[in-house]
């Protein structure tokens, strides 16, 4: 298709040379070069849809450090490559503009958010956990050893990974925090 300059590529000339003006002759160079963008992906991760519990397989295509496409994994015996509207919107879920990517801090009685460094936030949270735990520690309750705190509670979503739930339960239990709950209750 290349060569011959613009004149020979001019569809009218191509028409005169016998190409169909509603087909071949009308094609642009861009059209001729068109390929599915997933072909250019740097990597493909085999993932699982984060919405409901059917567990549909997803293929996550990454190009230049950005997700370029998420679609169904045809290998999955559960979903056979199919996705519902939410699963199909997964790329938007991970790339949409409303996603919050910075730590925010609201001081007591504050009227607005303030920026906060992640490391500082982690330190502050650790301090509060230890302080509250000390302040609310129950060694005994109704004459029985309970060694716990009712001052710290947790509520987790059910999109947490098993590994995450595991570390959470392990850490909370070691801290003596028992009010550990999950969407699974709700």
């Amino acid at each position, binding site marked *: 298709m290349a060569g011959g300059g613009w004149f020979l590529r001019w569809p009218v000339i191509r028409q005169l040379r016998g190409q169909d*003006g*509603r087909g071949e002759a*009308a*094609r642009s160079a861009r059209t001729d070069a068109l*390929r599915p963008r997933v072909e250019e992906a740097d990597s493909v991760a085999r993932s699982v849809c984060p919405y409901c519990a059917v567990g549909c397989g997803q293929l996550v295509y990454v190009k230049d450090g950005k997700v370029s496409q998420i679609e169904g994994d045809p290998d999955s015996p559960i979903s056979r490559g199919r996705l519902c509207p939410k699963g199909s919107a997964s790329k938007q879920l991970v790339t949409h503009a409303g996603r919050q990517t910075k730590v925010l801090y609201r001081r007591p009685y504050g009227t607005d958010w303030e920026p906060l460094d992640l490391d500082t936030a982690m330190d502050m949270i650790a301090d509060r956990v230890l302080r509250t735990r000390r302040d609310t520690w129950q060694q005994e309750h109704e004459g029985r050893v309970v060694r716990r705190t009712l001052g710290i509670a947790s509520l987790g979503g059910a999109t947490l990974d098993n590994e995450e739930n595991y570390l959470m339960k392990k850490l909370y239990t070691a801290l003596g925090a028992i009010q550990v709950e999950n969407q699974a209750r709700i």
Partner: protein
Amino acid sequence: MAERMGFFTDTSICIGCKACEVACKEWNQLPDDGFVFEATSYDNTAALGASTWRHVAFIEQQPVWMPDGDPMSHGGPVPHSGPMSHGGPMPDGGSMPHGGESVFEVGRDGRWLMSSDVCKHCTNAGCLDVCPTGAIFRTEFGTVVVQPDICNGCGYCVPACPFGVIDRREGDGRAWKCTMCYDRLRGGLEPACAKACPTDSIQFGPLDELRERAAARVDTLHAAGHTEARLYGESPGDGVGGMGAFFLLLDEPEVYGLPPDPVVPTRDLPAMWGWAGAAIATMAAAVAASFLGGRSR
């Protein structure tokens, strides 16, 4: 030219999930269409357009239930709330009118028809025929595609489509519609909507194969008593020479917002030029007469 590819949308197994709409938008990176509550069943998309290349229609055909918990009448077709005349929920509120003109017996259970509409990729495509720039062309897969690098937004394709599919996008100025994921097809992938469709209501494949499959499906449904099942757009003998995307419907096409007997406008083009020729002759004669008659006067 490769084999002609197409869509067969079997609405009898559509669950109205709209995965096709979203998968299409994700792949083709289309803008949203605004956030408007339409109060027309679960359809807030309204219609196909420049930024909506799949549209799922929802048609409620339910028996009219009286306060005593019984359908309004017994025996014969149960009156239902399907869209009649300007049917559907009325903009002025109130309940959906039930004209009582049921073509099908909806039974006690009622029906909720859902159907994913899309560009028909007509054999004789109005949009393609009238496009003055060659932006719209027929691909090696027999599909009809707009080239966004060519389209100058003349808008002619918009009224030329007998299905109201293609539209010009505000702010962008160009015309857009379903490409049957032309880029994906070139890479041997199936279109995003067909791939996502959870129940395989949207099937993609060589058109001939799909037509056979569809005929068999109609036979199955008829045998099961669903005599209302019929194909729409599969016949090469129709007014657009057969559709590259055809449908199995459970009611008349117009109930789904589809034209019952679409015709490609260019079918009458020779006749149109003929009449234009006559008008030109009239013009010439009129002018000649005006001058020559004037001289004689």
